[in-house]
């Protein structure tokens, strides 16, 4: 099975600023992948490299087994500010899409426009944020791409528009089986829809993998204060200590059987925050985990 996205030591610099630093990833096709990280972590850069709008400074990137080429019919991209042409009507957007894309699915486009209640005669400039996002998604999906890249698609939407957008996106995904990679700085937006996650902090991939495995493999340990032994069979992601107590967030595939620790579950947001805090602490560099299938 080909990978939706594969990178090897991928690096992108803008002048002296490094936006992406030696990222190695392998994301299998057929998943909905969340790309999370704080603002400025390199999420947009990675997506733009993946759709061929940018060229890497060093390293390799492949989407669907090919070098990214801008305008490829196999890859769809919706940029951050849900780009639509303000002066064109909804119907004109669909005609333009049909004209520019040989693989255009007019039935799908018209059905979706009707389903989300857009007036074909309405100018895009007059649409609400949620309606503009739905229009941009419809245009991208009607291309029938095998991989759809979305940069912060719901960041600017109110909660109802956000839910409606994600419902539409998941329906399209179920129908077509396309792979999706979407970025967000809010984990809560991605929790339900993504089965795969890439955590990007400070230009580097902190962890990437299956969401269920990620949830099962991370624990919060609370216990009497102790020095942290490296040989305890787990990776410490984040730690904090008071004079009597130690609290750790660890990654371990084996169950924690030391009874002096109280072991708690973490949700996805806790895990992502722990990686962010760990990376910000400076020691994160040594704990960078390889992207894995």
């Amino acid at each position, binding site marked *: 099975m080909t990978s939706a996205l594969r990178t090897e030591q991928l690096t992108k610099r803008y002048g002296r600023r490094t936006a992406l630093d030696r990222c190695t990833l392998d994301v299998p096709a057929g*998943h*909905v992948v969340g790309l999370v990280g704080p603002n400025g972590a390199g999420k947009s850069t990675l997506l733009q490299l993946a759709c061929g709008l940018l060229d890497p400074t060093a390293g390799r990137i492949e989407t669907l087994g090919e070098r990214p080429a801008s305008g490829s019919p196999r890859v769809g991209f919706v940029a951050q500010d849900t780009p639509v042409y303000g002066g064109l009507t909804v119907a004109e957007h669909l005609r333009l899409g049909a004209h520019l894309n040989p693989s255009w699915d007019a039935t799908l486009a018209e059905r979706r426009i009707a389903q989300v209640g857009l007036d074909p005669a309405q100018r895009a400039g007059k649409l609400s944020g949620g309606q503009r996002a739905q229009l941009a998604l419809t245009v991208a999906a009607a291309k029938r791409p095998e991989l759809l890249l979305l940069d912060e698609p719901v960041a600017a939407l109110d909660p109802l528009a956000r*839910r409606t957008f994600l*419902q*539409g996106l*998941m329906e399209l*995904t*179920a129908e077509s089986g396309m792979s999706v990679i979407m970025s967000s700085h809010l984990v809560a937006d991605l929790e339900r829809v993504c089965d795969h996650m890439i955590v990007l902090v400070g230009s580097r991939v902190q962890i990437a993998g299956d969401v*269920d495995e990620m949830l099962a493999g991370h624990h919060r340990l609370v216990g009497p204060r102790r020095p942290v032994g490296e040989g305890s069979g787990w990776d410490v992601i984040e730690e904090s200590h008071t004079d009597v107590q130690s609290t750790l967030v660890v990654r371990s595939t084996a169950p924690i059987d030391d009874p002096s620790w109280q072991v708690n579950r973490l*949700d996805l947001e806790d895990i992502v925050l722990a990686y962010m805090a760990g990376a910000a602490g400076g020691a994160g560099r040594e704990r960078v985990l390889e992207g894995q299938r």
Partner: protein
Amino acid sequence: MIEFHLDARSGVAPYMQLIQQVRHALRLGVLREGDKLPTVKEVVARLAINPNTVSKAYRELEYEGLVTARPGVGTFVTKTLGSLSTHEPLRASLQDWLAGAREAGLDNESIEALFLSTFRSFSEART
């Protein structure tokens, strides 16, 4: 046809919540043999969740022998689960046990902790 819902705060994985809701509907008799489950597309369009989550839940239910997928037609219930009447005697003996624990001086928190730790080691030993 049943309708699924998700509890984001429960700490239970979404696919497991779907499985539990089907089992629950089977126990209550809301779902019977031959009934159709909503399609993957219908579930994701309603809940805004990942299609793979729904497929995973349906696969698991199929593995348990509770449903069968007929390609192009849908997923159908093939088995009903034991009725609630079998719960009653068990509930009564659990109530007796709880009364005994209270008499022995355990408070609610201790009872819950004791139950959970025993339940965990019991189910780990059985799997």
